[in-house]
């Protein structure tokens, strides 16, 4: 089985599972699927930007923005579920492409830090405008706009599915070539006629829209939002951990990684959660050791294993640049 069929198969399985569980699943299965789908969408969205060479340290900016857009458009304007989500989608896309425009010249760590600053900046704004956002004591979504458990869970499943489909479509399209070229060498990419800013805007709009949408659905799901939650750096970090754990720059990596992250997180929390401090300690250590010993992620580790098993002498995988 080659990676392509493996990927398609995995995609099909994931699609079926995440779309059927909200319909047939037990409450705990629905709950875990919701969180996994949320992370899948965030991880794929983060990975989209990463695959164009844009390392985001501020994905929580999109997430929080989407959440607040939902709460405000529902509470203040009385917009129904789907319309609020479209609003959060649009806000995320706008913010993403705006950020792309102002960070046009920045790369690498400088770009990453700017996104971090953007997220922290939004947090300060949310804290300091209590009249609008409820400030640090937070805001509840008016319960009458809650569309029901099924709709919210299905919404998240659909969001994850559509995100994966978008990522898959992109991986099949010419844009994918531009992203990979930009990631490898923006200068050389330009000489082939690639206008990096255009693609940056596009990818950050898509990625931002997805993360913002996830934030919006999460806001419906949780029903409560405050700045510390909305712009929590942990959202950024888990959306990075998943692709890194699964296999960065790949299609299936973020999905595998998201499932693994939720699994590890729940396992440590449920098995060690009664001892003060231990569950996050173990999570941190797992993170450290997987970076040290699985630098290509689970996907890389698996395909290494695969290659060692298969007798054919394929060329060995490229060392990281």
């Amino acid at each position: 089985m080659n990676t392509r069929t493996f990927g398609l198969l995995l995609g099909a399985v994931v699609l079926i599972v995440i779309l059927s569980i909200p319909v047939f699943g037990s409450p705990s299965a629905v709950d875990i699927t919701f969180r996994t789908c949320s992370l899948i969408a965030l991880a794929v969205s983060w990975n989209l930007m990463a695959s164009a060479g844009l390392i985001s340290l501020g994905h929580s900016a999109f997430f929080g923005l989407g959440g607040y857009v939902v709460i405000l458009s529902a509470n203040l304007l009385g917009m129904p579920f789907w319309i609020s989500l479209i609003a959060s989608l649009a806000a995320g896309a706008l913010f993403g492409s705006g950020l792309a425009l102002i960070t046009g010249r920045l790369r690498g760590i400088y770009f990453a830090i700017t996104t971090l600053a953007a997220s922290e900046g939004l947090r300060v704004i949310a804290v300091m405008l209590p009249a609008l956002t409820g400030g640090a004591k937070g805001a509840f979504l008016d319960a009458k706009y809650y569309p029901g458990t099924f709709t919210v869970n299905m919404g998240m499943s659909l969001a994850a599915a559509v995100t994966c489909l978008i990522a898959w479509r992109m991986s099949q399209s010419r844009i994918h070539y531009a992203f990979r070229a930009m990631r490898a060498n923006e200068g050389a990419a330009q000489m082939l006629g690639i206008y990096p800013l255009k693609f940056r805007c596009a990818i950050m709009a898509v990625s931002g829209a997805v993360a913002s949408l996830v934030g919006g659905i999460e806001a419906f799901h949780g029903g409560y939002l405050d700045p510390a939650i909305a712009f929590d750096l942990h959202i950024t970090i888990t959306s990075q951990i998943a692709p890194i754990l699964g296999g960065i720059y790949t299609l299936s990596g973020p999905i595998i990684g998201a499932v693994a992250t939720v699994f590890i997180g729940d396992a440590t929390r449920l098995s060690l959660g009664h001892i003060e401090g231990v569950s996050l300690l173990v999570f941190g250590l797992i993170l450290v050791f997987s970076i040290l010993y699985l630098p290509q992620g689970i996907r890389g580790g698996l395909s290494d294993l695969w290659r060692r098993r298969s007798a054919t002498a394929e060329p060995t995988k490229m060392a990281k640049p």
Partner: protein
Amino acid sequence: MRKALCLGTSGLLIAAALSFAAEAQETFKIGAPVSISGRYVAYGVQGKNGIEMAVDVWKKVRGDKVAGRTIEVLFRDTQSNNAITVSLMNNFILTDKVNVIIGPDGSNVAAAAVPPWKKIEDRPIWLLPGGSSDVIEKEVGPDPYFFHTYAWSYYYHESNLKALKALVGPNKKVALIYSDGAYGRAHIDDARHYIKEAGYEIVSDELVREGSADFNPTLAKIRARRPDILYVLVQTNDAIQLTKQIQASRLNVPYLIGTAQAQLPEWQNAVGESQSCWTGVTTWVPGLSYPADKNEPKLFPSAADWEKAWMEKFKAVPEFLEVGYYASTILTLLAVEATKSTDREVLKKWLEEQHYQTPLGDSKFIKSRVALHQTFGEMVVFQRQKKADGTFEGVLIYPEQIATGKLKPCTY
């Protein structure tokens, strides 16, 4: 072969379903979302200690079971994270089918627990021994199954201002400091309201940043206004460095008024000499003279005895959350024992009618501004005063009937 497999599987499933049903009948399940990692870890540990102590005492006094049911407490770590709290609440109610939820702690996490609990029609009874923010009260609304076993934020300011009016007199200038964090924002509106109602003038109304490295700008501005009363609404972490900085910056304000922090050993240890003169307002403070309950003296001993028992078990002075979790847990166990039922209507009715004298005071539920069930909201005001031996004690100064001393103006 295949048939055997089918039979075996269905047999297993049936067995599992049966055992599940049997278990559901025989177990009394308490869902306890506690933050034992992440930033609210200090609170979470207190909540967990309180519940554990209550179950221990119950088992000692009444045996291992409650109304013939095994007591099972499901401690789940919220990791101080709201998304996980939402998931915990869902699982408690839908999957674990707990009979009662006690917790969680930390305003944000408690607030996050409200919508998932509320949106499920057959939600179990929820006792919340923390979470004073009025947004939580407004969001829960007059819900019949919600029992708040802690004071709402406005109780603090009502009590504080009553005490000030009685002990300091009218026509004072007040400087307010509140943080931009959840604590400050939850308290500021009611604080302003009661200060104005007392006829005091707010001469300075300063926002500070949670976790700020320097409060000097705020204090310098306040110094220029020469207030009589400094009224501080910040959370413990900020309170520690603010308290020290207030002493260092020689404000010369006669009355330093705080809220909950002054009775926390955490704060007292961390600020040392700077605790002098601070007043606090709380539901519980070591040294309260509440008597034991007449009917359940072993479960609800006198405040002093209970404190002693706690010290023996944990080698530390109990904190108010610990008392609150203890009393709330005992109340739910008593409810099940008395009614022999885990039905929420039955339990609710019993809880509404019960009346005990707990180490935390009178347990009778009353209506608050919005919520239907509210107890342990009686607040006492005390002042940290230096004793002759150089250590500090919390001298109760209000209400007058339990006062053990007088409010003294600051000397530094």
